[in-house]
């Protein structure tokens, strides 16, 4: 029965996906249309191209849902290896667009393998972690898992596309879910806190604060005999880290990187150079008010004040033309999608599906967090797209594949009920 088969797919996810894609396209249309264009169906138009990508992605979905679940489980590693090869191939055959060699070009269209590598890596991680012989509480297995995650990231960084590489940090969440010690998360968290603290307040304040807290804890820890060496090591490591951050920031980072951080930390007010994007994006969002200026009525959008508005900065169009209520609607749609994927992941009977689902949720969450954080000016400028929203065939298809493999995996649970 066809009805029986289709009802096994999670229609909530599918509807959320469709809603995001449609709203995203409306905003791409607004951000890219020009008054005096000849034809709607001219493939020179960005919005027409995106419409084509969306239609093609629907075929892709049917294809993904038609494939047997066993295929994803068996051939996850092969897909992963193919994807690594495609990333490596860029160094030889790749095309440069906007200074990054991230593309294979086929005539007017380009393919960005890093967008597909996420799904492949998620499959590989799921396969490795769900292997009976793998125990995520063992250091040896953790190291292997990290290697699986780090390889594609290492290939992407020199393209250079550090933003896309950053996304691979999202895999720490499925690993943690599957038994990795929380100390890794804590380490990451403290490293980030020390990093931002050092940049914001200066290395000496942070070093002083670390010493103060260390000594305080040591003195008030009277229950057992405190291990002086352990305290000393931790405090020393923290201070050394702070100093190294200071050194790296000032001597290894390029000025543009320093600028990006300084602007978000409020240390520099710069509306002409690097701060221009964020400033114009904030103006666009802020000028939307409660209800926005109306679809295709955004003056910031029409005047092209926000660079890359149809790609990474698409959310600023939402903010300007649909206002606070429209922006909140989009935020809620994303939250609902991520939470739905999380909830379903927890329900999975196979560990493979659960790890994969968790990876999907974490990747979507990272994109959502970094992108909207950047566009609304609370996160440094990192160029990554907003899933299903931003213009781009590779991006849309990459996320579609990522999401619908999970929809397919999830549907299997119903075979056994």
């Amino acid at each position: 029965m066809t009805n029986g088969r289709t009802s096994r797919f999670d229609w909530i996810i599918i509807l959320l996906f469709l809603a995001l894609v449609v709203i995203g396209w409306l905003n791409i249309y607004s951000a890219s249309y020009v008054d005096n264009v000849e034809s709607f169906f001219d493939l020179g138009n960005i919005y027409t191209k995106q419409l084509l990508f969306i239609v093609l992605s629907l075929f892709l979905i049917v294809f993904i849902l038609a494939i047997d679940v066993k295929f994803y489980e068996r051939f996850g590693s092969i897909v992963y290896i193919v994807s690594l090869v495609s990333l490596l191939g860029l160094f030889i055959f790749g095309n440069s667009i906007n200074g990054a060699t991230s593309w294979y070009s086929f005539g007017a269209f380009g393919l960005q393998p890093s967008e597909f590598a996420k799904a492949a890596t998620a499959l590989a991680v799921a396969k490795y972690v769900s292997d009976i012989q793998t125990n995520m509480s063992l250091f040896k297995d953790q190291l292997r898992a990290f290697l699986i995650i780090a390889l594609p990231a290492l290939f992407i960084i020199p393209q250079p596309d550090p933003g896309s590489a950053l996304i691979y940090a999202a895999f720490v969440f499925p690993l943690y879910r599957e038994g990795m010690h929380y100390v890794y998360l804590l380490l990451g968290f403290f490293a980030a806190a020390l990093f931002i603290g050092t940049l914001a307040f200066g290395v000496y304040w942070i070093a002083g604060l670390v010493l103060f807290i260390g000594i305080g804890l040591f003195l008030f820890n009277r229950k057992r005999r405190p291990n002086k060496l352990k305290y000393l090591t931790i405090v020393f490591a923290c201070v050394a880290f702070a100093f190294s951050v200071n050194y790296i920031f000032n001597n290894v980072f390029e000025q543009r990187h320093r600028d990006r951080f300084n602007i978000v930390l409020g240390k520099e007010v710069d509306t002409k150079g690097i701060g221009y994007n964020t400033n114009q994006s904030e103006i666009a969002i802020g000028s939307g008010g409660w209800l926005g200026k109306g679809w295709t009525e955004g003056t910031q959008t029409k005047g092209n004040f926000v660079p890359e508005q149809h790609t990474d900065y698409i959310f600023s169009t939402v903010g300007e033309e649909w206002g606070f209520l429209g922006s909140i609607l989009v935020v809620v749609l994303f939250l609902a999608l991520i939470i739905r994927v999380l909830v379903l992941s927890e329900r999975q009977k196979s560990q493979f599906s659960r790890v994969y689902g968790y990876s999907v949720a974490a990747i979507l969450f990272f994109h959502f967090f970094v992108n909207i954080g950047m566009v609304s000016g609370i996160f440094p400028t990192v160029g990554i797209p907003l899933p299903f929203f931003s213009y781009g065939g590779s991006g849309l298809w990459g996320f579609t594949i990522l999401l619908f493999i999970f929809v397919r995996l999830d549907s299997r649970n119903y075979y056994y009920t």
Partner: protein
Amino acid sequence: MRKYLLLILVLITGLVFTGRLFYLQVYNTSFQARSESNAYKVMYDYPQRGYIFDRNQKLLVSNQPSYDVMVIPREVKNLDTLEFCSLLKIPREQFEKIMVKARVYSPRLPYTVVPQLTKEEYAYLSEKMRKYDGFYIRKQSLRDYQVAHSANVLGYIREVNEAIVKKNPYYQDGENMGMQGIELAYEEELRGVKGVKYIQKDRFNRDIGKYKEGAFDTLPQRGKDITLSIDAVLQKYGEELFINKRGGIVAIEPKTGEILALVTAPHYDPKLLVGRERSKNFSRMFYDSISRPLFDRGLSGEYPPGSPFKALTALIGLQENVINTQERISCRGSYNYGGKKPLGCHHHKSPLAMVGGIAQSCNSYFATVYRRTIEKFDTPQEGIDSWNTHLNSFGLGQYTGHDMPSGRKGLIPDANYYNRYYRYPKYKWYAPATISNSIGQGEVLMTPMQMANFTAAIANKGWYIKPHLIKDIDKQDSIPSEYIKKNYTTIKPEFFDPVIQGLFDVYNDGTAANLKISGIDICGKTGTAENYTRIDGVTTKLTDHSTFIAFAPKDNPQIAIAVFVENGYWGSRWAGKIASLMIEKYIKGEITRTDLETYVLNGNLEAEYAKPHSGIPFLINQ
């Protein structure tokens, strides 16, 4: 915990974003304004400025197009600099300097390369300019003066400064505004209303079409033409008569209050304040603190009026009933009022009644009348205030209310003035202390405009209309009602007849007997006003000012005139002659006494004006 960590982070992120969006979109309202200033620009469509005509519909001021070569630096491509420079006729180094400045100003905004091309240059260049990317010719409208006179009347236009932009939101940087004279007084009528176009901009400030399909755009309203009461022929003649002299002429049509001529000397050609040389010429005239060509002496020069004031003293005496037309007052060459030095008089027959007193300009006669006028009251304070009230009704001691932007009040002292001066009540003062007022000296100050105005009031036997330059706006009788209303003096009409007779006799057998014009009955009064300046901190007497008032014809007056020649010595020496020539020119349209005309045209007082600045001792009244 392992199950919920990511879920919690997702929810926290949702909350943080909601808060951030609320702050940006709802709480902080400054983004709306920033977006507006960002996203569209306002373009103005300037209407033609109105033309200015004289009373006989002679065109005085029109407009001329002006063409500037402009550049948008970033659009310049493949420029053959040598060829282009030879086309513009400027040296290559200069061109390159200009281009550097243009790029520093803004790579994307227009900058002037060559301002104000001649029509020939424009015709030649407009064909070829298309070849050069990034360069174009901008058309602007400038004033085109058809005459070389009346600069003080017409005023000039120039770019508004920051203070004006702040005060008046109509104006934007770079716009023109009338700055003096009629251009300022009737700025709103002349300029019209500029049209507004809202143009949607992109991030490079380039136009990308109309904002909201032009829903907020407005059309320009053309400037209105203005007809002045000035008689261009008379005005030009007055300026010619004043060559090499300083002072002013104000001529008024008594029945209407229309100003026929408003001359200040030295004058300048209004064309000097248009075009490429504008700012150079303006600075030169602005900083000429000696001859002050930008200072309108007719409106703003405050001088002691001298003897013409005696007509007013007589009128007030008659109104206050302290003298009649028959009483004769004797004069022994001076009037002794108990001061250190008596008020001197010149040689004439004695005793004299009113008509003779005016005709012979007897100081003793008017000192007597003035003293009686003040002493009629119990206290000199009341006397002075009553006298002051009469004079105020002639428009003296206050703004005349004319429609030019500049003007002075002059000075008619009142009781407060003397109380403060003599520190009353600690010290008392009496009429003799102010006796010089009787003959238009002492504290009394008037502008030539005020002198012409009281002359018009005498000619009308007791009323005047505020002097004005506006005759009509846009060929309709739409002038302000205050320029139609009659202002009555406090003097009864019948008292004017003997005074007018006296002024008439000035020409018959009085101080201006040699200036008669055959066929025209002129009434007038000479004046010789003492004046002082400070040289190196020492108050020094200078050669007397030559003043004159007149109106003609005696019955049905058509022109009332006041002439003031700085340091021209006695009244009929220069001012009387100029007034006489002006009256003949206006009424007859031609000059019969060409020798007199030649004499005045060639008269030169520059040597007199150089004396106080020469730094060497000099003699006066020679």
